[in-house]
Every structure is written in structure tokens, then in C-alpha cells.
């Protein structure tokens, strides 16, 4: 089931919310945010078998990827082709497992829920205890990450800003989460979560979600126009849609390459992230005492 399309069809407020967010994002002309914004995270480990009940260490290994990726301090940045190095952006976000739960009590930021569901689909059942999952923490204060078994080889999925709070957050297959434990190559470097959190911050796929066409856009000017997604690990340059000589930016987190082959956000993507934090996710800024353009 398609999350974005389903919400467009079933949530009467969602299309207007998306349009408002896009208008706000398009017309926003401000300098890049300087303040580093802390994002409290709750990880819901939803498990049926022992291996799905991933260790705290595996959860921590994911945070240890997410943070350098969103601060442009990831050690593989030196693999970005020379032509795109000036575009590499520090998103100035710092993710930390929550230390206080919604009731004000101390927490590890990790919730464990046993389920009878062998594998979840992308129908959001994992996001509610009533359907075998785990209820979200308030989405205006926490980034919810559900880690579980997913059916059909799905690595993860997200929800754009503007959707229902009850399903806000990202879902990641436990075998694609973190860098240790059940994490399995070639998705064992934590980049599925980086990609999904990118969507949570309103980033689109860099090929424009138009199949293999050249007309779709990610609404970001500094990611080259590209046909379909790149899979695996292409060699530079990978040309499509007459975007030579440099070709597709397959090293971008919002392409579909293997974990080892994606390692950057761009300045244009950062502008969308900033707009998201000044707009639909502004509650996270005010919680941190940060002004939108601070």
C-alpha cells in the first residue's frame, strides 16, 4: 500500500497540507540556519522472534551513523566525486535517544514491543499497539522510528511532513538498521534510516518519482535531473536525461544506491530541511529553544 498516495486519497487535510508546505518552502528566501537542532528520538523495536528484538548496541550503532550523516562528518565523504564536493551540506541536526518520555519519566529512548505479526506491510500496522505494533510518542516532540520485520524485501518507508501525527515517523527493516547485530550487507551501514529521515524532513527522491522519465523533480535545483533510481553502486559518471558530463548524483542519500555508495545531502536539500523545521516541524525547534532562522 502506498503511504503518500493513500494519505492523499483518505486524509482530507493532507493534500492541502502538502500544498501549503510546498508553497512555504518554495517562497522561503532566508540564509541557511546556523543553529544545531537536537532531535529527540524514540526507537520502537517491534519483534516476534528473538533476532528481531535487536540489541541496544544495534540501535546505538544507527545513531552513530545518523549523526555524522546529518553533520557532514561521515568518514566516506572523501568518496564524493570532486564536482559535487562544493555542494555537500551540513544539515546541523543532532539526533539523540530521548532521555525523558512523554510522561516526564526517565527513559532509554528504546521501546520494545512483542508482536504476533510475522512481518509488517507498509500499511502502518506497526505504528499502533492495536494492530500488533507500538503506539507513537507525540510526533511534535519526538522522531518516532519503528524497527521491525517487513514483508516483500522492503527496507523501510517514511511519511512526509503534513500527514497524521498518529503515523508520523519512519519504519525500517531490522536487517537494514544500524551497522551491527542483524544488519546485513549491502544495507548494513545505516543509510536506509538516513534516507527515510530525509523523507521525514520533506526530501524527495532525486530522480523525481516519475519512473524512468526526465520530467519529475525533487524541487531541489542543485541535484541534477535524472531518469530512474540508481541501484547498487554505479561508477562516476552515470549519465541520464542528457545530464552529462557529470551525470546522476548517485552518491546522494535520496537515490537508491547501496549504503556504501551514498554519502551526501546538498545545499539545496538543506534549504528544504530548514523550511520543514521552520514550518511543519517548527515544534522541534521551539522545544530546543531555537528560532527558525537562528
Amino acid at each position, binding site marked *: *500500500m*502506498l*503511504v*503518500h*498516495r493513500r494519505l492523499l486519497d483518505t486524509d482530507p487535510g493532507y493534500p492541502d497540507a502538502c500544498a501549503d508546505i510546498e508553497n512555504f518552502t518554495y517562497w522561503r528566501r532566508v540564509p541557511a540556519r546556523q543553529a544545531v537542532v537536537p532531535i529527540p528520538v524514540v526507537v520502537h523495536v517491534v519483534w516476534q522472534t528473538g533476532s528481531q528484538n535487536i540489541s541496544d548496541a544495534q540501535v546505538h550503532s544507527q545513531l552513530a551513523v545518523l549523526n555524522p550523516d546529518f553533520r557532514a562528518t561521515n568518514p566516506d565523504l572523501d568518496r564524493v566525486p570532486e564536482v559535487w564536493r562544493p555542494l555537500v551540506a551540513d544539515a546541523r541536526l543532532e539526533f539523540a535517544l530521548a532521555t525523558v518520555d512523554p510522561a516526564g519519566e526517565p527513559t532509554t529512548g528504546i521501546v520494545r514491543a512483542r508482536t504476533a505479526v510475522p512481518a509488517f506491510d*507498509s500499511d502502518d500496522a506497526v505504528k499502533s499497539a492495536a494492530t500488533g505494533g507500538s503506539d507513537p510518542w507525540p510526533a511534535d516532540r519526538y522522531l518516532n522510528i519503528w524497527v521491525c520485520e517487513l*514483508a*516483500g*524485501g*522492503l*527496507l*523501510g*518507508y*517514511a*511519511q*512526509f511532513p503534513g500527514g497524521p501525527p498518529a503515523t508520523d515517523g519512519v519504519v525500517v*527493516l531490522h*536487517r*537494514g538498521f544500524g551497522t551491527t547485530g542483524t544488519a*546485513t550487507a549491502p*544495507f548494513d551501514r545505516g543509510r*536506509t534510516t538516513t*534516507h*527515510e529521515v530525509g*523523507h521525514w524532513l520533506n526530501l*524527495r*527522491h532525486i530522480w523525481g*518519482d516519475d*519512473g524512468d522519465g526526465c520530467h519529475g523533480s525533487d524541487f531541489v535545483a542543485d541535484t541534477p535531473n535524472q531518469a530512474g*533510481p540508481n*541501484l547498487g553502486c554505479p561508477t562516476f559518471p552515470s549519465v541520464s536525461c542528457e545530464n552529462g558530463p557529470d551525470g546522476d548524483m548517485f552518491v546522494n542519500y535520496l537515490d*537508491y*544506491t547501496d549504503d556504501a555508495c551514498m554519502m551526501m545531502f546538498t545545499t539545496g536539500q538543506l534549504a528544504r530541511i530548514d523550511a520543514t523545521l521552520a514550518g511543519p516541524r517548527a515544534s522541534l525547534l521551539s522545544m530546543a529553544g531555537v528560532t527558525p532562522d537562528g
Partner: protein
Amino acid sequence: MAEPLPPALFRRWVRAREEEEAGGPRVYRPSGYPLPPARGRDGIELRADGTLLEWTAGPVDAPVRSAPGRWTGAGPARLRLFPVGGEATVVELVAATDDLLQLRWP
């Protein structure tokens, strides 16, 4: 009159690129088959009433279904696909069993 198409054909199939060989047919496994994780598996669904549905990874990575297109027979082991918004294509039905579909694109 072409020979009847195998009933196993009519279901939702998920692309298994890892099982394909260069120059060979596209390989699909039934929805629910234990495929390894992959970013963006596409798929195809043929219904006995002539409906064609295509599946791709959507904007937030969950699989999305196309608007209904059509398919018809096109001679022995040949199908003519009419995807919505795309060109009609004749594909060769190489195999259709309970757990394997192989289609050769021109």
C-alpha cells in the same frame, strides 16, 4: 486460438533483479515470496479480466500501484501490455509457475 495462459500467471509479482542475467528475461517472484531486502522493487500484476497493474517504489518508498492498464494475448506465449501513460509492448512469456514468472522484453 492461442493456447490458454497458465492460471498461475494471474497474481501480483515482484521483480527479483538479483536472479536476472544480462540479456535474459525479467524474473519475478510472487508477492509474499521471501525475497532479500532491496531498495525499490518494482512489480507487475496481471488479472484474468485483462487488467494490468504496475507496482513501483513510491515517493516515501512504500510500493505504489499504477492506475489500471490493460493486457491482451498476442499469439502463442506473447502478451501485449498497455500500461497507463506508456507505450504498448509485446512481451514473451518465458515461464509462469506457482513461484516463478519470466517475461522477456523486446
